[in-house]
């Protein structure tokens, strides 16, 4: 279980996250929706210590982490228990697909090389990229790169994987293969927090939906309720806006 408490973050004058709290149960898939600029990316970045929050805590794996200041050692340990999938994949350009997946195991976790390769191959197989294991990222399509990135994030079997709009940078015809992989992960019980504009994924793949606006969570529901009978006007307006498009 991961419990996020009172994240706050401002950039200069702008209060990007006002007070964000939520909870993710093991095996849950949470879709985070919201208009552009509502703070979704910033929230995930704070939760990965890529951005230092001004306040807030996260309780994860029985340990409490201060998002404003944690020691380097705590941050390092925490990061070994999460996975992050970026909008732009961010594969290591000097490593093959397989090396991208095994690098963290071997270098950060000091895993035996043979075991790491073993696990890496399994992870690539799960995302359907085993036949491309020796390809460098520049030889892969966006969808293939993102699937390798997903394998890289899940190979260590983290307690939660954060996705930041994993299909937004893809050509429309490539989003399907990535969403399929994510739905498969979800079905297999992976705990996921997914920032997305893909309503179809939120509806089918997610257990719960969080709607963010202006640095606040304005509605939180099971995904069925959110899409059929949203409680707040803002959620209704948001859904209207989407259907209108």
């Amino acid at each position, binding site marked *: 279980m991961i419990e996020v408490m009172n994240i706050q973050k401002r950039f200069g004058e702008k209060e990007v996250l006002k007070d964000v709290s939520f909870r993710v149960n093991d095996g849950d898939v949470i879709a985070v929706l919201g208009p552009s600029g509502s703070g979704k990316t910033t929230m995930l970045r704070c939760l990965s210590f890529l951005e230092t929050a001004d306040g807030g805590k996260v309780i994860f794996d029985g340990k409490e982490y201060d998002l404003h200041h944690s020691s380097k050692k705590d941050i390092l340990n925490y990061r070994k228990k999460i996975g992050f999938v970026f909008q732009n994949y*961010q594969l290591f350009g000097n490593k093959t697909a397989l090396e991208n997946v095994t690098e963290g195991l071997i270098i950060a976790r000091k895993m035996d090389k043979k075991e790491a390769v073993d696990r890496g191959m399994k992870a690539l197989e799960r995302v359907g990229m085993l036949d491309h294991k020796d390809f460098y990222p520049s030889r892969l399509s966006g969808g293939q790169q993102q699937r390798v990135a997903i394998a890289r994030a899940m190979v260590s079997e983290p307690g939660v994987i954060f996705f930041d709009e994993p299909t937004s940078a893809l050509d429309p015809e490539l989003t399907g293969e990535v969403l399929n992989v994510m739905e498969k992960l979800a079905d297999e019980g992976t705990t996921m927090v997914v920032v997305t504009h893909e309503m179809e994924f939120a509806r089918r793949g997610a257990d719960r939906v969080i709607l963010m606006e202006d640095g606040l969570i304005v509605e939180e529901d099971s995904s069925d309720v959110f899409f059929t009978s949203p409680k707040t006007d803002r959620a209704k307006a948001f859904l209207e806006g989407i259907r209108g498009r």
Partner: protein
Amino acid sequence: MTERILQELIESFPKLLLTALKVTVPLTAISFTIGIMIALMTALVQIAKIPVLRQLARFYVWIIRGTPMLVQLFVVYFGLPSIGITMSAFPSAIIVLSLSVGAYCSETIRGAIESVPKGQLEACYCVGMTFPQAMRRVIIPQAMTAAFPPLSNSLIGLVKDTSLAYSIAVVEIMAQAQRIASRTYDYFWLYLEAGLIYLIICTLLTWIQRLVERRMERKR
């Protein structure tokens, strides 16, 4: 060109070549190796924004880039003894050349490191790596690929800069050519031959550079 001069040039060629192998090549190789290490550290303390060291690094680059190498050679070789630091010519040349490579190449390397998408560093963090691990395994290797052509240029420039060590009495190719010529007064031909030696070294290096670049191209 008379037969006598041709004869002289043929005889002097191995001598010049030997000087190149014994002085110019080691001077270049040692200075470049040390220089690249200085450059890397200088670039890294600026990128990691380490206080004090970062300002020091910028000061160092400013000084070295803003003053002629000839002045630096004179300061180290002729100037330092007056405050009690005496060194022979060869190590003095190594110091000055290394510092020069360090300053110029640090900018190249810094640019190359910054050219690697910042997200890759964050991706390293998210698989649990530390900053040094990320640099060593992911960022610097890619930066070096990007920096390879300009660094090769610097290396070739350095080969020619070693001739400045002549001014502090290092017996390198120029000094050797002059010595030989002073016996017969065929300066014109011997200096041309000295130039030829440099040309050979630089051509070889250019050739190696192409080879390596082609190999790196394949590994992507």
